[in-house]
């Protein structure tokens, strides 16, 4: 029986949620952490995991976890959302997007609101589903909303190649993809940021390799541990960060070896490099960062929604009072924002950090003990 086999297979998540092993990890972390330590979980998927499994509750008061810029929805510039809303409302255009993006507010509302006004917005699970949509609707142009980091960009790149191979003239990509290392460098360069370690993103590292963080650890003297997403993965990575911190080390370490190698995934990197070129990109909260975004390379211009449509993309101001930028830079915790839980809630978000379930404000609001509701 397939289900039975799979359930007992070592790769299944249940094994990595064992409360006994977790208790052992926690005991070790408690033993080691004798002074206040502040770690940033870079990746939004870590943020969700930490809240969903109630891990903060397990950690000693000395260990503080803050959320970083690793939620692609949160860091997507309002201007990108506005462009997608614009595209989705054009006659003959249908926008395909991951569900994550649907509720993110832009300057003129979210894609959900645009759909309510008549725009065509379709939620897909895979960029390949957007290709299928384009094939099924030859009289429309299907634009895929490309957001995500190194984990997602190769899949989208492969989809672009496949669209080209199939000669699908009615498919286009709006690329708002971003890459992590330049953003982390920009973040760590901020003198106001006090951090004792980085929980490095697990699946980004599957692509870029655990080695990608070595320079960072060395250049900024900060412990970096690649972490998986199951509770035991996260606790193990925290334990290793604590250990480095108390031992005064600043190294790049890999606590997610089953999914991450030193060199990463060269095929994925090659596909990505074939389709995308690095460009400067605006990150919400961090501003423009050189070479931190991915645009379609000139060879793929025919598939580039930015080239194909005449869009007036202008930088949009952040919502007044929203402290998303500070939250994403680790300068403020969500409850310190005046809107948090008042004007800004997951049902009606003011800023992007409240939108995606891996957004720091949303996770705090929904799962947090303090200040919630």
């Amino acid at each position, binding site marked *: 029986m*397939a*289900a039975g*086999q*799979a*359930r007992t*297979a*070592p*790769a*299944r*998540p249940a*094994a*990595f949620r064992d409360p*006994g*092993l977790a208790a*052992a*990890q926690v*005991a*070790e972390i408690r033993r080691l952490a004798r002074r206040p330590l502040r770690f940033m979980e870079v*990746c*939004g*998927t870590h943020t969700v995991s930490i809240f969903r499994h109630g891990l903060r509750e397990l950690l000693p008061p000395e260990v503080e976890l803050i959320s970083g810029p690793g*939620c*692609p*929805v949160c860091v997507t510039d309002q201007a990108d959302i506005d462009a997608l809303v614009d595209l989705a409302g054009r006659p003959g255009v249908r926008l395909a997007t*991951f569900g994550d993006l649907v509720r993110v507010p832009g300057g003129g509302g979210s894609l959900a609101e645009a759909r309510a006004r008549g725009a065509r917005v379709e939620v897909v*699970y*895979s*960029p*390949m589903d957007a290709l299928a949509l384009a094939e099924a609707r030859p009289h429309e142009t299907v634009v895929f909303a490309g*957001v*995500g*980091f190194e*984990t*997602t960009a*190769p*899949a989208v*790149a*492969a989809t672009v*190649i*496949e669209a080209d*191979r199939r000669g699908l003239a009615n498919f286009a990509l709006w690329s708002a993809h971003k890459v992590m290392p330049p953003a982390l460098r920009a973040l760590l360069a901020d003198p106001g940021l006090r951090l004792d370690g980085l929980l490095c993103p*697990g*699946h*980004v590292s*599957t*692509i870029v390799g655990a080695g990608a963080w070595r320079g960072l650890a060395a250049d900024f003297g900060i412990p970096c541990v690649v972490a998986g*997403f199951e509770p*035991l993965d996260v606790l*193990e990575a925290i*334990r290793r960060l604590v250990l480095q911190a108390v031992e005064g080390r600043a190294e790049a370490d890999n606590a997610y*070896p*089953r*999914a991450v*190698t030193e060199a*990463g*995934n*060269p*095929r*994925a990197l090659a*596909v990505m490099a074939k389709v995308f070129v690095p460009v400067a990109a605006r990150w919400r909260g961090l501003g423009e960062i050189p070479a931190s975004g991915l645009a379609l390379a000139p060879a793929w211009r025919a598939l580039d929604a930015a080239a194909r449509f005449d869009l007036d993309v202008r930088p949009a101001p952040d919502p007044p009072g929203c402290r998303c930028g500070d939250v994403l830079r680790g300068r403020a915790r969500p409850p310190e924002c005046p809107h948090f839980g008042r004007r800004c809630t997951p049902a009606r978000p003011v800023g992007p950090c409240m939108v995606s379930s891996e957004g720091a404000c949303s996770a705090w609001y929904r799962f947090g003990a303090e200040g919630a509701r």
Partner: protein
Amino acid sequence: MCLAIPMKVLELETPEGGEGLLPPVAVVDADGIRRRVRLDVVDRVPEVGEFVIVHAGFAIHTLAPGEAEANLELLRQMARAVAGEG
């Protein structure tokens, strides 16, 4: 943007046009849930019975045999060490 889960390869489909070196699609399973995933960007073409990590309909990593078990064993050792100490 990095939700990815391990799924077991049930079947490898041969490419339609025969192009490229890889069969582009695998049927994978997680506890009875099946889906076709693309192999375009996987680091190593899996064999039937192996696990791949799946993100957005694409396999992005093939686990080395025993890799997950080794990872877990590492955590178990840590736990035993703590228990031994305590």
